[in-house]
């Protein structure tokens, strides 16, 4: 009965590859997010979707493309992976956008070699 789940938990890949991370929430929330946590533990929002519509798109390279097939799922596809993409990627959800508690998934640890 995990609230926000992500797959895979670990991802080790070579530079230049393309990879996807999947996120699912069973909380019935309308809004989902992707965050990146770097090696210094700094957390920064990347994208936010509300009812399958993109509402936040921070200055992220266009190699990163989110996709929300329905409001319970938010996937992140990364093209042409670079060393600097190594980080922990967290998915989160909230009832609606703004002024709401956010619930985080367990994170996906991406290592680009």
């Amino acid at each position: 009965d995990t609230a926000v789940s992500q797959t895979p938990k670990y991802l080790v890949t070579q530079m230049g590859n393309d990879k996807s991370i999947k996120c699912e929430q069973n909380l019935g929330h309308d809004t989902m997010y992707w965050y990146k946590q770097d090696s210094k533990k700094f957390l920064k929002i990347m994208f936010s979707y509300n009812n399958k519509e993109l509402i936040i798109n921070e200055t992220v390279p266009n190699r990163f493309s989110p996709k929300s097939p329905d409001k319970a799922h938010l996937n992140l596809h990364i093209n042409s992976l670079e060393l600097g993409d190594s980080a922990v990627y967290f998915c989160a959800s909230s009832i609606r956008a703004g002024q709401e508690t956010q619930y985080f998934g367990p994170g996906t640890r991406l290592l680009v070699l």
Partner: protein
Amino acid sequence: GIQVEQSPPDLILQEGANSTLRCNFSDSVNNLQWFHQNPWGQLINLFYIPSGTKQNGRLSATTVATERYSLLYISSSQTTDSGVYFCAVEGFGNEKLTFGTGTRLTIIP
């Protein structure tokens, strides 16, 4: 954008001690949350507290919105309290959370 500062950056305490973590922010907010990131990396929401005071067991939090700060109190610390504590805020008209740099808490048995 809104700036969030947390202090202290690191805190090492003996089991049973009390602690106060501080979060200062640079503008008015309509959302403030405290999170605990445990040693396994999981982010747990502790409080949603844009203003006022809340308590949950040994933890409590107070946000003084007019003075732009929030405090997280941990009483009778346990080793399981170790980890990084993050404060995150959302400014008015800006539907995204900005995280502080965190306070790393280490509780020694």
